[in-house]
């Protein structure tokens, strides 16, 4: 074995340790900023249209419901948000949804496994950002979307293709780091 290849072999563990450290640092940083979630699961719907569904409106909300057919040929991208009044992270993300709705971004809500009166009370208390509001009382439509917990938010482009899914609350960082760039890109 020549001297240079021997030296290279001796440096190999050091190189591996540096690469591993860099990867680990990146993961920790991502967990800190919220851009990396070790428990996150990619959605199979990315790049596809939402599954076929029809849902009733949320009783007492006075808002129209929506079906898969309404999520095609849109005048602008739409955010579909699964939420529930019993869901604590939904309270955390609510100001961001309100902000988007004030800015004119259509946010369509699907109320998940909830009682209409509880959902109504939640919206009276925290504000109502939803342009449309459907109710999925059994949670069956949510399963067709691959939802595994509320809140979950889907970005649907004008052609009706799902471009992005966020499982967890839409924090101000997610709003500025993910949703705003998506809105610019698919405007």
């Amino acid at each position: 074995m020549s001297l240079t290849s021997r030296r290279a072999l001796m440096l190999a563990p050091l190189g591996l340790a540096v690469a591993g450290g860099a990867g680990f640092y990146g993961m920790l940083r991502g967990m800190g900023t919220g851009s990396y979630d070790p428990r996150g699961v990619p959605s199979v719907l990315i790049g596809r249209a939402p599954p076929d569904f029809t849902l009733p409106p949320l009783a007492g909300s006075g808002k129209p419901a929506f079906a898969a057919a309404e999520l095609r040929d849109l005048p602008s991208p739409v955010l579909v948000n699964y939420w529930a009044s019993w869901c604590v992270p939904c309270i955390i993300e609510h100001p961001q949804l309100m902000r988007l709705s004030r800015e004119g971004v259509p946010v369509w809500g699907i109320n998940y496994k909830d009682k209409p009166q509880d959902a109504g009370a939640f919206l009276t208390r925290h504000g109502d950002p939803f342009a449309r509001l459907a109710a999925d009382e059994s949670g069956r439509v949510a399963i067709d979307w691959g939802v595994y917990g509320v809140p979950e938010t889907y970005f649907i482009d004008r052609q009706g293709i799902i471009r992005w899914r966020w499982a967890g609350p839409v924090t101000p960082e997610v709003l500025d780091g993910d949703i705003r760039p998506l809105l610019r890109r698919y405007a």
Partner: protein
Amino acid sequence: MKKLILALLLLAGPAFAVGLPSDMLPDPAQEQRARSIGRELRCMVCQNESIEESQASLARDLRLIVRERVAAGDSDQAVIRYIHDRYGDFVLLRPPFNLATLALWGMPVLALGAGLMGILLLRRRAATAEPAPLSPEEQARLAALEKDPTA
């Protein structure tokens, strides 16, 4: 009497699965199939349990869907495909072999290969480590040193 009841309760213990008895299929063979399918599917909420073991409400919903599909006459593969279409590879407790799981499945082969390579390198080094015989000058110097270590 108390002892008898206790004994019966202890005997009945293993029969209490996570699911409600009313959620089970009336046909024991179908219920058995549904359970073995459910044990292949990850609970997306708890992530380290199958939907058969989990108390999460989503796991119950999925257990009911599995039973619905089994009762409707779907094959085991069709039921698993139904859930896989919605939740992706992550829902399968036995991950499929594809490009994304290449590193996962390839790791034992890689580790074995690295180990074999290490052994081969060590053996080659041992084989080449045989030192060359001493030259006449070195032998003379060694003899001198053996006589007088200060030389």
